[in-house]
């Protein structure tokens, strides 16, 4: 087999490893759903009435897409904690002493987290439908929207991979992978229109990558006339690919020298 084939087969072995873990730690999957569901209920029924959405847009539509995207960014903590745990338990050392592809540990972890978070996304879409969310941009819009969510998992997962391999301790990795996500996702347009924020915060919220990803998802899930698909999708793609490239590179470099 060639090197490229080994990358694929080794990554698949690692993906299999993590996918097997999911049903064996059901509580982890369960709790990773609770938080976004609580956010749905909070924003739908508690804060929702107080938020002024742009004319012609129902707040359920507005915030549900925000929550889809936010719950995908939480992939960061899962990946950082998992890798730090492997590092602490000596598993990364073992993998590095094997003649396997250097990138397979990271690719396998990302691949399985993609699958896990797509499950989360599907459950969240189900919850959304129950509280009144509707797809209004057709089948392909919905499908590409879900693909965009998947890409978000990979982008934020790369950041998580780099964090996990850098802090080397599972508890720290959990906090370090999580703590900045709250300010980042809440200072975006995920829950409230940017126009209602003070000027200085607006300036940030407009360039916040989470806003850009949420815009793209709104374009794909809800669509025009309220939300344009382009250029939001291109911008979001650029952000995600950029994050994957930069943090993927940093993570692989860190993996080689831990």
């Amino acid at each position, binding site marked *: *087999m060639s090197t490229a084939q*080994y990358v694929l*087969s*080794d990554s698949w*072995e690692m993906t*299999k*490893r993590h996918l*097997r*873990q999911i049903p*064996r*730690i059901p509580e982890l999957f369960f709790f990773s759903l609770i938080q976004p569901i609580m956010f749905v209920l909070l924003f739908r029924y508690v804060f929702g009435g107080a938020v002024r959405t742009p004319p012609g847009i129902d707040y359920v539509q507005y915030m549900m897409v925000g929550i889809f995207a936010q719950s995908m960014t939480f992939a960061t903590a899962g990946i950082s904690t998992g890798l730090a745990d492997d590092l602490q*338990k*000596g*598993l990364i*050392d*073992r*993998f*590095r*002493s*094997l*003649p*396997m592809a250097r990138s*397979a540990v990271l690719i396998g972890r990302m691949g399985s987290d993609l699958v896990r978070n797509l499950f989360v996304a599907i459950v969240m879409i189900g919850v959304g439908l129950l509280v009144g969310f509707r797809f209004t941009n057709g089948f392909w819009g919905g499908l590409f929207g879900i693909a965009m969510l998947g890409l978000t998992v990979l982008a934020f997962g790369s950041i998580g991979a780099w964090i996990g391999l850098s802090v080397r301790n599972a508890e720290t990795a959990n906090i370090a992978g999580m703590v900045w996500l709250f300010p980042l996702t809440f200072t975006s347009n995920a829950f409230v229109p940017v126009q209602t924020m003070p000027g200085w915060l607006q300036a940030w919220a407009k360039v916040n990558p989470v806003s850009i990803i949420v815009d793209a998802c709104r374009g794909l899930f809800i669509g025009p006339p309220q939300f344009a698909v382009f250029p939001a999708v291109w911008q979001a793609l650029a952000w995600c690919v950029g994050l994957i490239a930069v943090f993927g590179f940093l993570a692989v470099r860190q993996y080689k*020298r831990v």
Partner: protein
Amino acid sequence: MTDNVIIAEGLVKRFGKVQAVNGVDLAVPAGTVLSVLGPNGAGKTTTVRMLTTLLRPDGGRAVVGGHDVAREPDAVRKIIGLSGQYAAVDEYLTGRENLDMFGRLYHLPARAARERAAELLARFRLTEAADRPAKTYSGGMRRRLDLAAALVIRPRILFLDEPTTGLDPRSRLGMWEVIRELVHEGTTLLLTTQYLEEADELADEIVIIDHGEVIAQGTSDRLKAQVGGERISFTVGSAAMIPKASSAVLAVTDATPEIDQETLTVSAPVAGGTRSLVAVVNALDAAGIEAHDLGLRRPTLDEVFLSLTGRRTEDEQEERD
């Protein structure tokens, strides 16, 4: 020299300002066991990590199985087995799934990986637990699974980094038995340990390292001879008797005896064999001291370490903190 399958020449590794390994030379002939002995933080693990391609040396050179670890790491990884200080297995996977996964990552065909996993599970008495998650295994079982994972490709060269640390005495004996079997089959083994007894028990050759440097080297017998020949040792009934016993021994042997307050043991090197023994017995008798377990014996590796470094192995950790 050509039959040395593990060679290190002047290996150096720094972490920031800390000189973790400072010019270590090693040579392990094929089919033999070298034990790297030293206290916590001596540089044992760092040395093993360099030899197994996990760390790039800052200086020096290492050749394992004919391949330079820095230039041909992949060639080295294909022929070695490594079992580190932790039981590095996935605890949510079953024993079988773990071994199967490692087999596949060594690029064994699917069927060969499966068969090898079953073979190893049987060999390490894990067949019954094979389909339970490793999380449910005892410490000894996990270690056996970890060692099994290192043997998936029947490596000719095996590195074991403190294979029995944290094991209860029974599991330790079990592990020794397995290691002896492997060596009997012709595996070349480099083993690190902080247990002097373990090195004594398993190794053909012992290298003692401290602060990243080799401070002594040789067979167990030679190292023991290096600290002087025989020693006399005995225990007394109470701590109050120790000063008197001590001065009685000093008067006869001309050496300040070593005292172990916990076990109330007094020991000292002697030159004159049984004649010294009789002299000490007489001196103790004259001082009115009743001694137990009195006899001549060769020094333990603990005493070797003490005489080489000026301190006991167990003191090291506190000293470093």
